[in-house]
């Protein structure tokens, strides 16, 4: 059973198999009035205040309060005196969550009141959706200042008021910084981590050698230093175990291609943390995720050069998908600052076309393939696929030419794909522009991908009937001619 009901019961905590809605109207020994659902849509401390205010307020006084929350926090809510019942949903697994929500929606009756915090924050979005989906006679809403109001037609606008937002200071985030480079660099990393646009409310723990402790102590916001003895793997191991067992929201390390602090770097890479902030040799940083891991592996390991981060040059891979004259225009377009700021272009083309692009301004490197050797061709294609450029550009005009290159466009590991059309207008391919790609562009008189596919299918179907028709047509035409003469 996905939905787990933990009932704090004055009647001995007897497990009840009936639906929550029915349970709410069941007498439990306490004086039960109306039924109230509280949906967990904020952190624990806030929710505690919300539940207390709800219980004391005029709308839910003497009522039976049921909290709908994550199963990890079920016990906490159970311990609150004003909560009669806790209905939990699983913390992990989207399908399990959907199943739990569906069950709740289908089996739960209509409570008198449902309570939630709607403060304009983006977290607990699914719970907030559940709050709206659950049927209730009345809805009590708390804003960011924990001012509450009963939702009706007169105060709907308050839902969208800017003042509803939470004004409380941001939560402190526990950050673990690994000493993965020289002490000056680690100090700089600590400073940069606290930048307003990185983690402004960082509460920092540094995992470092004992000899570095003095230098790091003086850094602001360093709450704790987990030190290990210099040149002692055993001490490092013990301290590492101790440190990583603590819960840190973000871990921070420097990956700059140097072999120093190899163990710490390895630990940094293997830690099972959700948020991993990586600094490169130039001390530009980015969070490690599915979009950036390729760049981090391919370029970030180099010492201070080829940084994948914002201010550094962008490595753009241009695939030969048009005739040389068009390609030259495409390259100059791809090098435009508004398309790729500070672009460094690598062109991938056939060996025989090398002469057309040699000495062309704007190209940093030309990688060629030869048709003579399949092995060499495959090897160079594999290298291109795993070259992790910042973006890859190709022209798609609906034509059948350069098909292998167009296929390669989809295989290259990169976060950005730039599509050029017949007139060399371009767009970054993403879910918003996918429709443009699929449904084509009338201006260029190019059939869309969809129409092309349909047309191909129809042509395949019509082949035999048309063949038969043409044979008959030819026979009758010639017969007619012979009869005439």
């Amino acid at each position, binding site marked *: 059973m996905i939905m787990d009901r933990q009932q704090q019961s004055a009647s001995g905590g007897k497990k009840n198999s009936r639906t929550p809605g029915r349970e709410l109207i069941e007498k439990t020994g306490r004086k039960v009035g109306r039924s109230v659902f509280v949906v967990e849509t904020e952190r624990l401390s806030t929710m505690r205040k919300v539940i207390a205010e709800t219980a004391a307020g005029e709308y839910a006084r003497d009522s039976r309060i049921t909290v709908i929350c994550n199963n990890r926090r079920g016990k906490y809510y159970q311990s609150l005196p004003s909560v009669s019942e806790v209905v939990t949903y699983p913390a992990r697994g989207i399908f399990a969550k959907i199943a739990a929500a569906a069950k709740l929606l289908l089996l739960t009756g209509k409570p008198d009141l449902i309570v939630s915090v709607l403060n304009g924050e983006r977290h607990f979005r699914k719970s907030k959706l559940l709050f709206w989906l659950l049927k209730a006679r009345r809805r009590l809403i708390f804003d960011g200042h924990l001012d509450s109001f009963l939702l009706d037609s007169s105060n709907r606008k308050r839902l969208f008021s800017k003042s509803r937002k939470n004004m409380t200071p941001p939560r402190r985030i526990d950050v673990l910084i690994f000493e993965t480079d020289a002490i000056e660099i680690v100090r700089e990393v600590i400073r940069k981590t606290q930048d307003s646009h990185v983690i402004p409310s960082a509460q920092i723990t540094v995992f470092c050698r004992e000899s570095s402790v003095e230098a790091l102590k003086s850094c602001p916001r360093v709450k704790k230093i987990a030190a290990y003895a210099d040149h002692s793997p055993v001490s490092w191991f013990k301290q590492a175990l101790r440190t990583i067992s603590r819960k840190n929201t973000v871990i921070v390390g420097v990956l700059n291609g140097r072999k120093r602090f190899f163990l710490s770097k390895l630990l940094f890479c293997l830690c099972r943390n959700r948020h991993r902030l990586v600094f490169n040799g130039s001390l530009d940083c980015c969070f490690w995720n599915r979009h950036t891991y390729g760049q981090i592996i391919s370029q970030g390991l180099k010492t201070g050069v080829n940084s994948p981060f914002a201010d550094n040059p962008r490595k753009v891979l241009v695939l030969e998908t048009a005739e040389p004259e068009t390609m030259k225009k495409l390259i100059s377009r791809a090098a435009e600052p508004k398309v790729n700021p500070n672009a460094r272009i690598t062109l991938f083309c056939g060996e025989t076309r090398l002469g057309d692009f040699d000495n062309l301004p704007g190209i940093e490197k030309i990688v060629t393939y030869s*048709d003579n050797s399949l092995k060499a061709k495959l090897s160079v294609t594999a290298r291109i696929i795993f070259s992790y450029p910042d973006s890859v550009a190709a022209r798609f*005009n609906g034509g059948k030419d350069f098909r292998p290159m167009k296929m390669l466009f989809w295989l290259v590991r990169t976060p950005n794909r730039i599509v050029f059309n017949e007139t060399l207008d371009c767009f970054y391919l993403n879910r918003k522009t996918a429709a443009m790609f699929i449904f084509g562009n009338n201006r260029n008189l190019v*059939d869309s991908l969809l129409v092309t596919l349909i047309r191909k299918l129809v042509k395949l179907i019509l*082949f035999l009937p*048309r*063949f038969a028709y043409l044979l008959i047509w030819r026979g009758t*035409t010639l017969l007619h*001619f012979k009869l005439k003469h």
Partner: protein
Amino acid sequence: MIRLLLLIIFLPLQLALLVLIGISECLKLACSPFRKKQPDPGTFSTDSCSLVMLNWNGIHLLQESIPALLEAVQADGADHQVIVVDNGSTDNSVEWLEERYPEIEILKLEKNRGFGKGNNLGVEVARHDIVVLLNNDMIVRKDFLRPLLDGFSNQDIFAVTSQVHFPAEKRREETGATSAYVSRGWLHFTHLPVKDHHLSRKHLPVLWAGGGSSAFRKSMFLELGGFSDIYSPCYQEDVDLSFRAWKMGWHSILAPESNVLHKHRGTSSRLFDEKHLKAMVEERKLWFAWINFQLHNLVPHLLLLPFGLTKWMPVSSYLKSLRKLPGIMASRIHMPARRFSDKEILNWSAHPLAYLNRFRSERFQDSSENEKLKILIVSCYLPHLGTHGGAGRVFQLMKRVAARHEVTLITYLESEADQHFLDQSRACCHKVVTVPRGRYRTRSWYPYEPFEEFNCDVFRESLEDLACATDYDLVHFEWTQMAEFSDLFPFTPKFITEVEVNWAAHRTLVKVESNPLKKAKKYYNTLQTLYREAELCKKADRIVCVTEDDKNYMRGYVPDDKLLVVKTGVDLDYFSYSEKDRDVNSIVFVGAFRHSPNLDAMHYFHREIFPEVIKACPETHLYIVGSAPPDDILALGNQENITVTGFVEDIRDYYWKAQVVIVPLRTGVGIRGKVLEGWAAGSAMVATPLACQGLEARHNSNIMIADNPSEFAESTVRLLKDPEKCLALARRGRIDVEELYGWDAMGKEMIDEYESFLKNRRDLRLEKNS
């Protein structure tokens, strides 16, 4: 995704709308027996007119527009009437006018009645047959009036509109050449640029005559009920009125020599903000479509309309626009019977050539015998010398025809490199129009369409402009595929040159294919090409074939009397005869590699013949000469005894150098220019029977003919080892080519064909008339 959602949500509403409009259509049909017949608008005079200017609190605009208007009236000199309709102004406009311009008649209205009503009242009080309606922000040029009045050249003209200009600092949003198109269910109005043909033809159709700068026939205007009240207070009344006139068979045209300057939205922008104006325009477009469009045109419009809602107008505006539905239904019921369909009306304004072909077919006059003919040559490759045999033939004939007649050439340009050869055509033609080869839209659903890649919209547009500006005596389509455009010339004699009979060329491909599946596919391609080729040839008056064999291929599919033969020649002066400085070990192949038979020939020779030749004569060197060699041909150049030159400036050097010129063609049909060139330049040649098709080729006399690889290799080796034999072949070849293949004779033959065809046509017509 949101739009798709809108499409689904709005579907019931759209269907309901469709049903309502369907009901009104049924009611209209039911009422049609009781409706009065279309009245005769009567006679009219264009000597003078009434000029009506509508004003609402526009004293600052009148201060500029009235003096210009009075100056134009004075310049014309006739007894024109000037009326200002004042829509209840409160800015002392009337007092100002009365004080400064007592000659102007003023119609004072108590309150603002809107654009449509105000103008309707102005037209009612006008005393002349022609009424010119002007906005108060329209500054007319001194000579604007007469071209407008001259536009009423026949009984069917309802309105003549001026060319509109904008102040220099503003983007020109209007020209007066109005048109409309429907895209994904949404109607879009547009102003097309005024082109050369507008100026040369003077009066070409427009979808609507702007209500602020056009002249109208008063009787027709009143018959139509003037501007409709539905669109009150402003916008799209004029579109609706002109469209209703078109439906009744009354035309609206543009007079490009009549010019006005428009201070755009001088009045309405004071009343409404930009957003409001945009919404007003869009909702009026919907009303216009719902009132005027035929039911079958409204089905896609209504069903697709929600898809464009967020893009073109907000949902709320759309819902608001439904308030006029009862009025719209009433208008549909009272609509008189139509003479032209929506499609025709929209087509004429966008494609004036279609209008000319429909209403001005008498514009084609038979030219007299000694008069220079106006000939339009439509070619898919740039006619020029140096790279391409077919293009060379077209150029040689065109040059000779252009010496006698006025030739205009319109052609595709394959690449920017073609610009290099453009001067050759410019030197001999009256006018040369080039269109870069671009993308084309696939129209057919059948597998394999051989000619559609040449049916490009940009080319069609350019050809239309040419045909619209000039009435040609004859159109000659070089290569069959260009006859796709023959529908543009329904009244002009059309010639097609079958430079290569495409289906026969495809048939040769079937013969050399060994894989049965591929063979079947190629046979299908042959039939499909034959079907299309026959279809296109039927549209022409004469089919020019280059050999008797080609003529025979087409026999049975095209009437015999349409077929004629004009052979391909060779430039005997350019390819001069030379016996000196031959490289005794050289073999030369010449051919543009864009032409697939050349590609096949080279592979065939390299794979099956060349090894035999090398075995017998190890010193032999093969030169592969021709433009655009693909990678596999370039790769042959890596071998020691093969040179791939690619494009060469002067091809004669290779003919003069070669000991043997090879023509190992297995596919394709038509005359091989390279054989003629080889004969002219004094080269000994080995060729396949197919390469000699249509030529006076005699084995062992002027050429060596070899049917299979071993024979071909044997003949080549023989010539490489026997220079005397080479000399004998070359001399005989030169004598034959001088006798039979001079371009001047071919050019004369072509001119004679043109002239005799036109003469016969003229005689037939005279006979018919008498």
